[in-house]
């Protein structure tokens, strides 16, 4: 396998009835790295993540994920590429008709893990993010911050190779935000490559990780151990 988890080459995107958000974006994500993706609201953070989790096709340019070109793959093979990912969606995308525990164990079941074992894993993780009281409730009654933590638990329950999180601390207070950041860093230490889209300055300052800054349709990559501005 290549040392790059993701490689973008002259990638651009133009929404059919919307703005051109990227012109020619070229960058690589090294295996095991931890990036913050940042930029003003509407810059295209969510759109970039969407391309990485194969929810949005680049209008031009080429994209490689785990050394493979998803645009040239058979559609039936795409799920296996997606199974290497964990995604925290900006709007959570929890399933309202499933209890919290079933929402979190779903990615495991989808990957063929037996239901009882999947539940056990999910329960452990939910305890860890402080939702041990909410295992058997439906997501619709949870607060924004709780939903966010369920979404995070669902994204990491499979120990993904690449974690993509879209504003994962947008709905929680600073204390929980830092706790979650710590969780992401732990995960990163165990080998997961992490990309977090955020405009939470506090979070950016607390972490030494490099940035991907979206600016005027391109992406600027900073090196690690930057000085906080």
């Amino acid at each position: 396998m290549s040392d790059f988890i993701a490689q973008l080459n002259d990638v651009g995107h133009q929404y059919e009835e919307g703005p051109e958000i990227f012109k020619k974006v070229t960058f690589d994500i090294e295996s095991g790295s931890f990036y913050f993706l940042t930029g003003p609201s509407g810059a295209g953070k969510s759109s970039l993540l969407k391309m990485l989790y194969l929810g949005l096709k680049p209008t031009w340019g080429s994209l490689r994920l785990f050394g493979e070109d998803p645009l040239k793959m058979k559609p039936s093979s795409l799920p296996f590429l997606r199974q290497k990912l964990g995604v925290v969606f900006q709007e959570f995308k929890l399933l309202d008709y499933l209890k919290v525990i079933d929402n979190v164990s779903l990615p495991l079941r989808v990957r063929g893990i037996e239901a009882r074992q999947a539940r056990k894993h999910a329960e452990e993780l939910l305890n860890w993010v402080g939702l041990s009281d909410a295992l058997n409730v439906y997501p619709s009654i949870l607060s924004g911050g709780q939903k966010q933590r369920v979404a995070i638990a669902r994204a990491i329950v499979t120990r993904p190779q690449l974690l993509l999180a879209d504003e994962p601390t947008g709905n929680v207070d600073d204390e929980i935000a830092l706790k979650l950041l710590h969780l992401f860093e732990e995960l990163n230490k165990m080998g997961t490559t992490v990309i977090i889209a955020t405009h939470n300055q506090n979070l950016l300052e607390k972490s030494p990780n490099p940035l991907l800054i979206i600016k005027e349709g391109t992406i600027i990559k900073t090196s690690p151990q930057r000085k906080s501005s």
Partner: protein
Amino acid sequence: MKNRQDLPLTHDIAARFLPIIVGLMVYLGCLCCVFTFFVFDATHSWKKQLTTHVTIEIPRLPSESSDTLQARVLQLLNKTPGIRQAAAVPQRELESLLTSLVGTTSSMDLPSLPVLIDVALTEEEPIDIENLEAHLKNMDAQIQLMDHRAWQAQVLTLIQATIVLTSTLTLLVLLTALIATKFAVRTSLLIHRHVIDILHLIGATDEYIARQFQIHILKQGLVASTLGAALAFLTFWGIMFLLENIGFSFAFKATFFVQAFCVFTLAPFMTSFFMMFFARHTALKGLYT
């Protein structure tokens, strides 16, 4: 533990009409199929019992010559290829037949009744009926040959048409259940498009999602078609009961009841398995595009 479903299919509007249609179709299909077996069996035994294909009528002549004529005719018939059996209808049988038709025979001149000879043909050898008739006319111009095979063939054709019709109906009914399944799955795919997108994004294969439909439809199909078949069985039982009560004399063979039993027990399984495969196929096709 409750069997978990990863798609909320049980709450669909689409899910509600399917069991009703399937139940009704299985009900009709079972009855149609059993009726087909009934007609088929009845025809089979009727054909076996059918021994008279041709009847020859010899007019009553002055008694001596009549008997010799009858003997000569029988002799000719026994020599003719294609004839299995030829026998005169006993005079007493004719009399009782007449009695039952006109009441009393006291005023009748019984000896003037014609002699009837029933002829049974074999299927192995064809008979030259025109040649036979010519020979008979040679013996006596008044001898009549009545060929029943034409109307018998017509009745058989009619019965066979009924069998074709009812088996076609059975198949159409099954097809209706399958088409209803297809539409239900397609509607579900549309209703749950949003959820299916999420499942795809968290790594679900089409196979996994199709399995959800497959299991759901199998369960629904089993419940609905079992109910349909049970109701059909009750209807069948009721009809049998009624027929017996009004003195219907047809002797049902044991094999017919075995066939009917098979229809009622196998129909739910066959229908729901077909539905399951249809659901799977429809889901996979719908997910792919």
